[in-house]
């Protein structure tokens, strides 16, 4: 579902894009692989690029850039508390399917100034336009509230990030954006997209992959926990017993 909207976005971009009229876009990430190691506390990556002006010099253009990084799809369960007999209790529960585990957007100006609401919505730009299917016993208005709550929470965790002035121009054509990746980022396959807007429409787009993966030890521990869970639990117990026994020996000697 999400993949398809991406293809539509890219195809649409290429349909509009013709070399003779519009400028070309080149971009890259400072890294295409983030390793989660044992001392991982989040990281910053840089997306950089240039707008290559077209051959014929046209009139001054109203150009804008939007950078979007999307993480793997991560289903969420959202619960709402209600006060019952003075105690706050989780009452309604909604499952949100299809939201990304990470979403970063940087642009040269606020999205509303760059393009029409319809365009921004069509390309699912901005956290307000993220698509999610709701599963739960709830009406459409309520579903919107739950979706908004999920997005609010992700923003608090710095997993969703919108920076309307996050793209910095180093020269007339060179640009750069700093992307904050927090420690709690979900591992998986990411996509980084750059859109070049001209007078409110996309004239060029580029997409590059980014992989976030746990490094050797962390990945092995995680895999063991899920694939060999009995042995994993047993190992945890053995570890505890070994240290408990060591503690006893030390204690006995000091007595």
């Amino acid at each position, binding site marked *: 579902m999400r993949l398809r909207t991406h293809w539509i976005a890219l195809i649409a971009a290429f349909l509009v894009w013709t070399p003779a009229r519009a400028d070309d876009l080149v971009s890259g990430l400072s890294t295409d692989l983030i390793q989660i190691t044992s001392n991982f506390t989040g990281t910053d990556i840089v997306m950089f690029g240039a707008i290559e002006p077209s051959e014929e010099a046209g009139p001054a253009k109203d150009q804008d850039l939007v950078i979007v990084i999307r993480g793997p799809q991560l289903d969420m369960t959202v619960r709402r508390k209600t006060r019952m007999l003075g105690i706050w209790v*989780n009452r309604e529960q909604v499952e949100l399917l299809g939201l990304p585990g990470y979403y970063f957007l940087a642009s040269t100006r606020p999205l509303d100034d760059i393009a029409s609401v319809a365009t921004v919505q069509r390309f699912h730009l901005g956290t307000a336009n993220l698509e999610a299917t709701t599963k739960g016993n709830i009406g459409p208005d309520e579903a919107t509230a739950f979706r908004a709550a999920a997005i609010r929470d992700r923003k608090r965790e710095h997993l969703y990030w919108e920076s309307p002035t996050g793209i910095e121009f180093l020269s007339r054509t060179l640009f750069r954006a700093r992307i904050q990746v927090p420690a709690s980022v979900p591992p998986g396959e990411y996509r980084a997209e750059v859109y070049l807007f001209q007078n409110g429409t996309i004239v060029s787009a580029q997409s590059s992959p980014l992989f976030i993966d746990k490094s050797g030890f962390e990945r092995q521990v995680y895999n063991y926990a899920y694939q060999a869970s009995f042995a994993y639990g047993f190992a945890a117990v053995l570890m505890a017993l070994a240290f408990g026994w060591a503690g006893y020996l030390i204690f006995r000697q000091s007595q």
Partner: protein
Amino acid sequence: MEIYLPVAQLSVNWAMILGVGAAVGFLSGMFGVGGGFLMTPLLVFYGIPPGIAVATQASHITASSLSGALAQWRRRGVDAKMGAMLLSGGLAGSAIGVYIFRELQRLGQIELVVTASYVVLLGSIGGLMLNESIRAIRKVRTGGNAAPTKTGMHSWIHGLPFKIRFRRSKLYISVIPPVILGCLVGILTAIMGVGGGFIMVPAMIYLLRMPTNVVIGTSQFQILFVTAATTILHATSDQTVDIVLAFLLVIGGVVGVQFGVRVGSQMRGEQLRALLAVLVVGVALRLFIGLVTTPGDIYSIVAGTP
């Protein structure tokens, strides 16, 4: 200072977690309790998801109860037969508890149930302990003997069938009360992440009427096995054991216990009990406030694996 927890999928300050392990170990060495009732709330305040906190810190209790049980064994303070009876109930209880835990997690009520059980259990036991120790302290001040008050005879317990002789405990009673007691504590272990010593010990003294010198050792003996089983059950059924977190807690705990035991042995029993009671009531109050105050955001989100 930061270390990434591979199962919890977040990074924590390892010195802080070592410190939490050591502090709880210190208190558990000082008071002779497992300390699970402190560990779970502390980890949750720190930002560890409650499910992971409950399951992971069971291994901290395994480590400290092994140290304790070995020391008690040498002092002939373990009634292995009674321990085995408690354990047979305890293992069943822990399996039931892990099942309940998973259902509650699915329904989104695990936090509420864990917190509410803490408030009720800690509040009532802490209140009783506080009351008892204040009276004991007063008695000592007026020059009396500070023996804990005893409740009346529970003759109905002696009327139950399947009687067995427990040599170490000098008892001849039915196996039903120990098995049921073990089962109840096993359920608590799985749901609340506590060893259950704070329920087990009074129940052994007042309900089963076991002599005080075998109570602590026997309770530690059975807690050792129940928490080990709980760790494995949680690891296989809901993958909430984070071995890196467990490692830090165990290291801190094993060291903290040693200092706690030394400090505890220099304090008077009734003062120690009063302090523990204040601590228990304090934790209960803090959790109760959390239940009734309006949360910052009434929505809560669980992403991916809970």
